[in-house]
């Protein structure tokens, strides 16, 4: 796979990180990502990322569960093997509500977690390039992808002047993932970036 060059800047304060993100973007660089030890609220907006539509996927999985439960139970109890239970109607919708509800939740939850893992390329045994060991401990690691025109020294100086405590140049390549061979994820909102 294609090897790419990245400039890495490490920050140790959220307060410093946000203005730095602004400055780096204002200077026209494309930030690949910021690796943080915890969810920094608002950072996705500051980076100009699109909203995730994971919750929409969750809704679709949920109604799939509802539909599966209703259709399966009603087919079984009215067509395949109608049971006479005390002369009550075969199509006993109120009595099915608990199972319909449970399957809705089950489908939504399992589907969402699997989608989450697929989108984030997370699975047991997946190896990724880690730009800094302390990104899961106490550093906010900003990674900027270099183009042909990028002057790494200028960029490092820019990061340092904006409060980066460490700067670095690294070469990394993307790992393999289902159906994404050499394809970039489109994570950013183009309108916001412009």
């Amino acid at each position, binding site marked *: 796979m294609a090897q790419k060059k990245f400039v890495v800047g490490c920050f140790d304060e959220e307060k410093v990180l946000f203005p730095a993100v602004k400055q780096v973007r204002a200077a026209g660089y494309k930030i690949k990502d910021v690796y943080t030890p915890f969810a920094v609220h608002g950072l996705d907006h500051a980076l100009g990322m699109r909203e995730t539509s994971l919750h929409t996927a*969750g809704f679709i999985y949920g109604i799939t569960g509802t539909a599966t439960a209703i259709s399966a139970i009603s087919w*079984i109890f009215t067509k395949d093997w109608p049971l006479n*239970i005390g002369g009550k109607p075969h199509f006993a919708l109120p009595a*099915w509500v*608990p199972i319909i509800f*449970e399957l809705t939740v*089950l489908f939504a939850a399992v589907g969402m977690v699997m989608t989450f893992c697929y989108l984030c390329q997370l699975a*047991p045994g997946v190896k990724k390039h880690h730009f800094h060991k302390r990104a*899961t*401990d106490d550093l906010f690691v900003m990674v900027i992808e270099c183009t042909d025109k990028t002057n790494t020294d200028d960029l490092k100086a820019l990061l340092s002047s904006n409060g980066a405590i460490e700067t670095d140049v690294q070469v990394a390549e993307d790992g393999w993932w289902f159906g994404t061979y050499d394809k970039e994820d489109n994570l950013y909102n183009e309108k916001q970036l412009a």
Partner: protein
Amino acid sequence: MHIKYESQLREPLVYGEKNFHQVTEDILRPIEVKPSRLWYIGFFIAVTLLLFGVYSLYREVTYGIGQWNLNKTIGWGWDITNFVWWVGIGHAGTLISAVLLLFRQGWRTGVNRAAEAMTIFAVMCAGQFPIFHMGRVWLAFFIMPYPNSRGPLWVNFNSPLLWDVFAISTYFTVSLLFWYSGLLPDLATVRDRAFTKLRKKLYGIAAFGWTGSTKHWQRHESLSLVLAGLSTPLVLSVHTIVSFDFATSVIPGWHTTIFPPYFVAGAIFSGFAMVQSLLIVVRKVFGLTDYITIGHIDLMNKVIVLTGSIVGIAYLTELFMGWYSQNKYEGYTFWYSRAYLFSPYGWSYWGMMACNVLSPQIFWSRKMRRNVFVTFFMSIIVNIGMWFERFVIIVTSLYRDYLPSSWSVYYSPSIWEIGFYLGTFGLFFTCFFLFAKYFPVIAVAEIKYVLKRSGESYKPEFEKLEAQPLDKFIHDNTHAH
């Protein structure tokens, strides 16, 4: 919009002078050092109990349900009592992680991880009871609806017992997913600190390759929020459906509409008590008193006194309805079999009343809520009381049915019934000891999020922030342009 800081009036959620790295160090220390002698002793006891449980089950499977002292009238005895008890305990974790997340209760961060783990282990224990109560446990898969060569003979979707199968298995699956997806970032932290190759490899596999990318965090937040939204009605549905096992029957003492809310309140009550029992020990042994603070214990005790009182009102309502309905059978069950102290099982009713309704009232006092010893003692008492509650509901309603000739002799469990129960304690604590040894017992990443918003050493800075208009703060910090 998310909070930028927490009011000065609130107690800090993290005590002491901490920074992000210190948080990592503190919480991960217990899993990076050799376990203490105490851990080995505890683990040994747990495994011994587990093995005794396995032997008890071996007897039950080999010789049949006759190994238990159930009889014609009391068809559900200790076994289903223990099932409901464990399921109830399994409600606190998801309640803490889901409901409190939706209510934006910051204090959940200190306790949610351990509580969720406890939930999963408790549900695992609970599941054993109905499965083995089937007798021919090797045919347990018959409870799943699948096309088969017996007709196909389907399960009865109108039966509360089948609803239970779906509710408990869904609850277990969703809780497990919620717990593990929350663990991923913390496992990545452990992986990146690994000091041996083996640790790096194993935690690397467990962490799924988590990097901490902003996009991943954004999706992770969305996932947690939706899972919390799904788990909130789920957690309420599970014990509701367990209560339907009883409430949809026509047995006096079970056939009541009050059961769903009453069971859910009881489940939260016993679940929080179990969380208290475990965390009071964990925070002391692992030196995590800065993270699981007296404030946390205080807040959980408030939940205990609230839910305990709800349960108390439910008991009184039942007694009232037993009289008000003027139904002879109801009256007999509630006023003779239960409330009359000198009836055969009257002791269990009053034991339940004393443990669940009277004793938690001590927590109206702030001093008692913040006393670790009182809390630990009370958490045990509450769980004994909640066990009695299930025993009372099941046994006192069954032992004298409509036909006096089949009124049972006094029911007391056989050693193998008790052994099965002890075995689930063994399973629970074996799992919990392993969890505490190999996984971070506190959500590291979430503590880091609240640290600078609610940490003791950061609180004084908020005075400056309080003076600043909120709109300006948002504009400065979150907008791209």
